[in-house]
């Protein structure tokens, strides 16, 4: 359908529109007009993504003289694929109504691992080895050598891409990662470098958060995006965590050992170069004297991750004299590694600020703050000079330099925590040094400054006034929408007692109580016998899930559950989890029905939809609090209290309930869908906890459903399923009949 919002004609690919989608578009349009940032919460299952896409593309179409670029950030690659396929739908619709004028170029961008089509490279196991394998074939020095010696392998796709030079462009259209690979194969061009190049020209770019928030990646990929861009962070309820992670580093014993090996290898290389090609090292020295950390214009294939510090904080100065010479720099690194090793020997937990740490490095290892700051760029330069292409081997020394640069650059908002062992297993020594960032606003600040509109949106941003404080920005629009419903398509319940009327909870003192475990198992058993198709269960942690599933197995409860449905489980191995999910969907598709055990805050809870028959019921076992004994969390809470006056308890509850809401929100995707949600913990019945849930869940939570036991919940579920499913069942029955008539 086509309609007008003020001066913009909006092209919306469906015949109908929800009222809240329209309201959402209106607010968004105002924010774009004001060229300001905005914060929008809209329940899952109301078509947020398509509303966003269709408004922003229509807005761009209505202003052809001043085209805005649209940068859409997703949490995960599979969300990227989903977004792009929605965009495809929209684009087809716009082409139908506007003709060629609506043509845009939209593409997704990911790492080499997901885009490479060279069979020898892509077979490598992880991202780093794929990157390294690619560099081995495409680095400028390798190609120079290959020009003389044809026996040195190169990548034909990259060579073809380079040869076609300016002709290598993507025709307008919407490209998912798979489409990019297919196009690359067709043309014989490298899809990764093609996409990297086209990002600058595209109208719509879809990529991961990290490409904007992590300065290392943003520095090479998002550097040249124009100011007239709209940046959208979708599913942004965890954006503060991503920002913090982007600026945190941790160093373990293995890292130090690896770094020592790396330093030895580099010193060998230096000796070799001294013997064969001393001019090269001298050239590097001269370049550094002139103040250029890097060789001016690097070929795309040589580009490496950029500086981990934020662009505004990087010193525009020459590299200090005492690390200009390669040998000197290596000895500085050696001393730094030695110093950190010494710090890791500690018996007690230590916590200090960056200033104190830098001072202690200076006195004990003789490395001053400026040297620390330049570590990362200096290392980068050295590795290019030494022509090292197996970068995956050098991750450890990179981590050390990463740490050095950050600790040398920032004086507040960070702390350094050294733990000699894991809190839960004090007998196993596992020392770790962590540089953790507490201030989420640091990483996102350059994004707010550089782009004219930043949209932060999700299904759960409650309480909505907390985010501007955490991220330190002033939105021009900040709204939370509720869901308009003609019928109850969600049915939330709070279960506080098991079938024996004893309270259930994952609170510390009740957590390993066999009675609670049994009650949880009984609850699931009741539900699998009542609810059709798919059921999703979320637990508070992997260890809790493993424990409870094992205990269900031993007591035979699992066997009874399996008589009704197949059981799949999330593990920490992504490959296995992905296959389990795929099978889970197959089981739901074929009518067998299945249960999926998953972990709140895990990867599945973060990005996988369990809509329609893939999830008729979701059970949240317990309240997913963070691991409160973690030193990092404690340090962050302290920082939040001191700088933002946010109480520890409030933040923890807020964080736990946004995760719980996120988990249960997975079951509903549109209003034709329906799903039940069970919060199984007695703590949800308390008002201070419950009130932190988003409004669209609270408005469906009836008073009668606040304090249920297993048998009552089962009764409600049975009735609910009957009512909700009746329409569908009638439809199917009629069809069955007609088929039966046909076949006789």
């Amino acid at each position, binding site marked *: 359908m086509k309609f007008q919002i003020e001066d913009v004609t909006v092209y919306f690919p469906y015949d*109908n529109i929800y009222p809240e989608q329209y309201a959402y578009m209106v607010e968004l349009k105002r924010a774009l007009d004001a060229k300001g940032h905005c914060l929008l919460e809209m329940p899952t299952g109301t078509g947020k993504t398509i509303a966003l896409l269709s408004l922003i593309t229509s807005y761009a179409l209505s202003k052809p003289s001043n085209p805005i670029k649209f940068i859409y950030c997703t949490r995960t690659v*599979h969300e990227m694929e989903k977004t792009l396929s929605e965009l495809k739908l929209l684009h087809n619709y716009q082409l139908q109504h506007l003709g060629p004028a609506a043509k845009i170029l939209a593409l997704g961008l990911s790492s080499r691992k997901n885009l490479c089509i060279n069979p020898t490279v892509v077979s490598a196991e992880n991202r780093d080895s794929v990157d390294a394998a690619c560099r081995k074939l495409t680095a400028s020095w390798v190609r120079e050598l290959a020009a003389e010696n044809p026996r040195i392998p190169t990548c034909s796709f990259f060579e073809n891409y380079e040869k076609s030079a300016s002709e290598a462009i993507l025709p307008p259209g919407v490209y998912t990662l798979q489409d990019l690979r297919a196009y690359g194969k067709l043309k014989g061009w490298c899809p990764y470098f093609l996409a990297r190049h086209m990002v600058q020209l595209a109208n719509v770019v879809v990529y991961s958060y990290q490409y904007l928030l992590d300065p290392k990646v943003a520095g090479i990929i998002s550097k040249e995006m124009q100011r007239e861009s709209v940046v959208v962070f979708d599913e942004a309820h965890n954006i503060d965590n991503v920002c913090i992670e982007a600026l945190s580093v941790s160093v373990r014993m293995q890292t130090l050992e690896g770094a020592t090996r790396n330093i030895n290898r580099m010193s060998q290389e230096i000796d070799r170069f001294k013997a064969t090609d001393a001019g090269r090292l001298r050239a590097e020295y001269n370049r550094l004297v002139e103040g250029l950390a890097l060789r001016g214009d690097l070929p795309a294939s040589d580009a490496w991750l950029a500086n981990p510090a934020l662009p505004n904080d990087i010193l525009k100065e020459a590299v200090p004299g005492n690390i200009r010479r390669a040998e000197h720099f290596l000895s500085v690194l050696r001393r730094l590694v030695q110093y950190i090793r010494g710090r890791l020997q500690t018996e007690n937990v230590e916590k200090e600020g960056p200033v104190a740490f830098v001072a202690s490095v200076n006195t004990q290892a003789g490395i001053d703050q400026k040297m620390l700051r330049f570590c990362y760029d200096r290392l980068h330069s050295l590795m290019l000079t030494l022509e090292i292409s197996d970068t995956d081997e050098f991750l450890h020394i990179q981590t050390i330099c990463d740490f050095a640069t950050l600790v040398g650059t920032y004086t507040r908002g960070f702390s350094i925590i050294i733990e000699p062992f894991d809190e839960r297993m004090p007998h196993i020594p596992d020392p770790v040094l962590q540089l953790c960032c507490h201030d989420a606003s640091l990483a996102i600040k350059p994004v707010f400054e550089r782009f004219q509109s930043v949209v932060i949106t999700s299904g759960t941003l409650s309480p909505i006034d907390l985010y501007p404080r955490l991220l330190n920005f002033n939105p021009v629009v900040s709204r939370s929408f509720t869901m308009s419903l003609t019928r109850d398509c969600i049915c939330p319940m709070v279960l506080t007692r098991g079938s024996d009327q004893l309270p259930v909870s994952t609170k510390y003192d009740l957590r390993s109580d066999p009675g609670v475990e049994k009650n949880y198992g009984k609850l699931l058993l009741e539900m699998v016998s009542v609810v059709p198709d798919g059921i999703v269960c979320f637990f508070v942690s992997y260890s809790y899930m493993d424990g409870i599933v094992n205990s269900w197995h031993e007591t035979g409860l699992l066997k009874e559950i399996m008589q009704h449905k*197949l059981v*799949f489980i999330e593990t920490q191995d992504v490959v296995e989890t992905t296959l389990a999910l795929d099978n889970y969907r197959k089981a739901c598709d074929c009518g067998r029905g299945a249960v999926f055990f998953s972990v709140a805050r895990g990867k599945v809870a973060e990005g996988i939809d369990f809509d329609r028959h893939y999830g008729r019921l979701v059970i949240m076992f317990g309240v997913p609090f963070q691991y409160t004994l973690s030193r990092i969390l404690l340090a962050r809470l302290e920082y939040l209290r001191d700088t933002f006056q946010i109480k520890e308890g409030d933040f923890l509850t807020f964080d736990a309930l946004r995760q719980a809401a996120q988990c249960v929100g997975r079951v509903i995707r549109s209003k034709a869908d329906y799903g039940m949600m069970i919060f199984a913990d007695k703590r949800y019945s308390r008002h201070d906890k419950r009130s932190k849930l988003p409004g669209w869940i609270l408005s469906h939570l009836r008073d009668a459903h606040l304090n249920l036991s297993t048998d009552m919940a089962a009764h409600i579920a049975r009735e609910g399923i009957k009512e909700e499913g009746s329409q569908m069942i009638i439809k199917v029955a009629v069809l069955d009949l007609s088929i039966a008539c046909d076949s006789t």
Partner: protein
Amino acid sequence: MADKQQQVVVKRARHKSSVKDPGTPGVLKMTKDRFTFMANDPSSPVKLNVEFRTIKGHKFTKDGTKQALLNLTQDQGGNYIFEFENFPDRNVCKDFVASAIALSGEAGRTVPEKSAVPIQDEQLSAAEMERRIKLLQEDSDLQKLHKQFVIGGILSEAEFWATRKKLLEQNYSRRPKQRVALKNDMWSTKPLADGQSNRVTFNLTPEIILQIFAEKPAVRQAYLNFVPNKMTEKEFWTKYSRAEYLHSTKNVIAAAAEAAEDEELAVFLKQDDMLVNEARKKIRQVDPTLDMEADEGDDYMHLPIQDHGLPRNDNKDVLDSQYEPYRRSFSQHLNQHAAVVLQGRVIDVELGDTRSVAEALARTKHAELAKDASDVYLDKERLERISRMTEIEDLQAPRDPAVAPLSIKDPRDYFDSQQANAFSTLGDTVSGAKQLKCSVSTREAYCSLKECISEIKFQGLTEPTINSEVAFKVLNGLAQNISSNKYHLGRNPNESILDSLPKITREELLLHWSSIQELLKHFWSSYPITTKYLLTKATKLKDAMSQIYPKLQEIKESVQSDLRHQVSLLVQPMLQALDAAFAHYDADVQNRSARSGERPNGF
């Protein structure tokens, strides 16, 4: 079928060079592998002697049209047209030709023909014929019907198959057979320990072995490698059980120590490499909207706190990397188990023979993986699914829901449920009658009794008197029998009246049931009668049905007395259906004769 009955067919026909040609009268003779045509006029140049091998198809005009033509197409492009004196003659030849072509097609040709089919004519390609023959071979009931009606001359080949178009089409796309699924039951490795000795017993059945082989490809491979060259079957399973026991004790170090001493045992204790490889292949097939592995590729932050404050447990177990291969998680097993159950029974092998089970599984797995690599179709399907998933359904105009067709394999279930219905209606009428009696006054009862007595007085008793006790016993027995049947019916799906009947009666009943169904279907589909052809067809069908009618009566009388009631209940609906058909036929005939007075041509 036809060729078994008739080896040679000889008919009068005219050979024509084209449809317009008046033709040469003569005699057409067909044998199994060739047909010959001799003109009546010996001086005529037309003389044919053609092998069926060279014939690739045949066309014919519809029954009831102007000419009874049969056109045989040769694969070089030539054709032979014959005109017959009447349609029955033509049809006999046509059916004969069809089977002859099919036979010769099976023997020689492999490429089925694809020539343009004229609208009026039906052409039977060899492939089509083959499919029919195959269907007949697979389904003995169908074969019986075919024999009875087509070869018995009641229905023509085309008529018979016309009602089974669906069957033919479905069969074309090879419908998978229904199979029993695997049990969703994890073989719990809980050993049975008798308290006295240190002995632990494991129970293995062929079903469990199949499950182990399907879930653990490494064990399967080990079995194929070791048994029987290196160890006996018993030794193999003992070793396997030992490994399982070690796992169940969760003592990683002990497992590693034992594995170091015994390399065969190590195979069971280590992680399954084949599964890992398989997973890597399968991961390329999954829906990209689920693919979490791709995220890993996009993750530029090598951090311990990836999961937003979720405590990581994997880092704590760094105790020794040499024990790593011996660690095995329960969740992994759980996922693998569910995947295998979901896939279902992939092999069709008798379970007793362990070796053949292992080999068959290995084969199917291999084939599956090879197939996956180059499946473009799957790719397309995946894309379609994604685009379907992305649409918001209730904002869109409704689309037809995807439904799978019902597959009722056993018509008996349907039949039985009809009987149950018949019973319940019967029960209703009985109770209704009772009510009627209840309202009878004593006076009326007395009157009727008096009437009876006076009647007996007048006529005398024809039967010998029976002892009232015996009579009571008989009546009681009968009543109980009937009511117990009524009670049991429908309660237990596995027991039906049919099963309680003697085998011969049962089969006869079923045969009659299916043949009546077939006949009725054709009978009713030939109404309203618009052509002479349909009239003859209806008459023929009616005759066939009236032949079955007395047979049903016979069955009813032949069974033992205690079953007679049930059999008559079974037969009743058939008879009713037949009666209805007869009544319709008679009414139609009367109508027709009344009208034919007005209109001389009968239509």
